[in-house]
């Protein structure tokens, strides 16, 4: 019978299939872990006297509450935020006690968990990958089944390398056509979320398909899969192809030699069979997508930058959201004066994103009064960016360049947006207070973020492209 890619990966990981009474026992090939969602899971192991069952499949980094200033990371200055310091220190102890491989604060390979998995070649097609983090969906860009779990489940995977799971439904997201210049993967995924709705993917694994997706680089595919959860889907997947294989070949933890050839053969067989049935299908015409920006307090509240804030008379929840944002129905979004611009996160913190930002900033200045923070997704991204001189472009423009981490995406490390300020951000969530108490987030692509930094207001990047 014709199968979807999701079904193929699912079936090869069933230790025990599901029944009416019990969920499936699903084997996990890669368990990524970080300092925020694991402390209580390690406590669970201690209480039960259990070891981490598969240390070889468990991998730890610190990213969420880590500082991004060089003095605190490499300069011997203690982490200023005491609560973050405690968490980082306890995580290092937990990893040492349970013998889990950890990229510590000063490790040259450290970075945001969803950036370094692919970077190191740990993320591979056909794997089941979990992490106590909802943006684990990022790894689905490689044709892996990757999803976020809670801390109790983190404990389950530590102890048994397995999870209890019910099989999800499938949804094909068919995206067809060439993107217009200045339109990027971020705009595509914002348009998809706008189309499906923020709960439209609940209970489903998405498979992004079509010519637009096939034409994307791995970095772009990761941006798309990253935000699957913002449509309510725990996982998003993309068929592995030559682009995928070229990205992985030669990476540190990817298969080498004969193992590479064997892996390739297995990976080529993962694609959804012709005639396989999805529970639901949606179609997106990519040629119509323009640079997008959010105006509200969830990622589905987005418009093309040339458009005005929609009017929904009589909807009190909508009105409250706009009031929080300080916006009026019918107002042009380009009227919004920007206080902060944040470039980074697991959505858009990769080298290609930074290159796009640099392409706009080169020879230009960040507008007076705008604070622009550029945080690479990993230390490797940082080194590569510096090798290309991007940090000099950023500095010349007046932007701040930091060490890697989640930073202002969720403001746990002290990098926050002040109350009432507008921040154009390349991250993935514009929830109330996400970037700091009272912060107002407008999600956009790296190009849009850079263009808005230069003009000081929300700006369609096409107006600045040569």
């Amino acid at each position, binding site marked *: 019978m014709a199968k979807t890619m999701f079904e193929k990966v699912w079936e*090869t990981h069933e*230790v*025990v299939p599901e029944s*009416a*009474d*019990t*969920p499936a*026992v699903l*084997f996990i090939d890669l368990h990524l872990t970080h300092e*925020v*969602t694991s*402390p*209580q899971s390690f*406590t*669970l192991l201690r209480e039960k006297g*259990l070891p981490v069952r598969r*240390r*070889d499949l468990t991998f730890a980094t610190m990213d969420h*509450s880590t500082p991004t200033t060089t003095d605190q990371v490499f300069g011997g200055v203690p982490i200023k*935020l005491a*609560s973050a310091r*405690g*968490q980082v220190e*306890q995580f290092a102890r937990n990893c040492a006690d349970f013998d889990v*491989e950890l990229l510590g604060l000063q490790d040259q390979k450290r970075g945001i968990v969803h950036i370094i998995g692919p970077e190191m070649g740990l993320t591979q097609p056909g794997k089941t990958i979990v992490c*106590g*983090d*909802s943006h684990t969906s990022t790894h689905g860009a490689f044709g892996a089944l990757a999803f*976020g*779990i*809670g*801390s*109790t*489940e983190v*404990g*389950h995977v530590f*102890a*048994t390398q*397995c999870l*209890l799971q*019910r099989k999800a439904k499938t949804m094909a997201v068919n995206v067809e056509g060439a993107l217009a210049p200045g339109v990027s993967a971020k705009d595509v995924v914002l348009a998809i979320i706008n189309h499906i709705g923020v*709960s439209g993917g*609940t209970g489903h694994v998405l498979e992004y398909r079509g010519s637009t997706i096939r034409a994307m680089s791995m970095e772009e595919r990761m941006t798309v899969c990253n935000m699957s*959860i913002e449509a*309510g889907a*725990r996982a998003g997947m993309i068929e592995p192809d030559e682009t995928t294989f070229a990205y992985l070949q030669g990476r540190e933890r990817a298969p080498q030699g004969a193992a590479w050839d064997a892996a390739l053969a297995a990976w080529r067989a993962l694609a959804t069979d012709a005639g396989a049935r999805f529970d639901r299908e949606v179609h997106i015409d990519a040629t119509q997508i323009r640079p997008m920006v959010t105006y509200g307090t*969830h990622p589905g509240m987005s418009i093309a930058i040339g458009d005005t804030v929609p009017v929904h008379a009589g909807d009190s*929840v909508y009105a*409250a959201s706009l009031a929080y944002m300080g916006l009026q129905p019918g107002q042009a979004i380009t009227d919004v004066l920007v206080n902060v611009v944040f470039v980074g996160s697991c959505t858009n913190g990769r080298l290609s994103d930074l290159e796009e930002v640099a392409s706009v900033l080169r020879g230009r200045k960040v507008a007076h009064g705008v604070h622009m923070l550029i945080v690479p997704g990993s230390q490797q991204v940082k080194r590569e960016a510096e090798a290309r001189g991007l940090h000099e472009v950023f500095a010349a423009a007046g932007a701040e360049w930091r060490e890697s981490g989640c930073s202002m995406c*969720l*403001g*746990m490390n002290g990098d926050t947006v002040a*109350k009432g300020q507008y921040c154009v951000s390349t991250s993935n*969530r514009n*929830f*109330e*207070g*996400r970037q700091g*108490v*009272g912060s107002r987030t407008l999600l956009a692509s790296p190009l849009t973020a850079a263009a808005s930094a230069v003009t000081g207001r929300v700006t369609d990047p096409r107006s600045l492209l040569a």
Partner: protein
Amino acid sequence: MDPIRILRSRTVVMATTNIDTDQIIPARFLTTTTKEGLGAQLFADWRYDATGAPKPDFILNTPAAQGCQVLVAGRNVGCGSSREHAPWALVDFGFRAVISTEIADIFRNNSLKNGLLPVIVDAATHEWLLANPGAEVTIDLESRELGLPDGRKVVFPVEAFARFCLLNGTDEMGYLLGQGEAIAAYEALHGKQPTAATA
């Protein structure tokens, strides 16, 4: 975890749609390394003013909300982050059930593991509950029925195994640990034994 069979409680209503886990428990409180005490920070940014004083008009600060175990929330509650701190905070505050028409996947899973019952109801029942805050409801996990004050009973879906665990107060870890032989057999069959270098 204490077993749950029947909950009887007045409801607290928060009709806002898409209540995300960043609202339920803001990120700056996630540096905690335990599960306890998070109830004080539940909905912190909606509940307290800039000085940290409770806002008298926020529902959880009103006398009517005290002692209520059932939260009726707008559509798509619990979207966003996978933080289990969200159900921990709700449970620590005293909630044992959340009712909505749509409940986000990860939050629903996390809730079930912490004795917080996610109850999904049809739009008409939901509308009635939103319009009648403080209604005395009964949630019977055994029969999977939500009982309304007028005697109506509404059946809600709940995954069979999670229900079994909640009814008996057992957690899933014991069940998974009991699958040790099947896991080892799977690893042998699929060539997924520990690699020599790190085992």
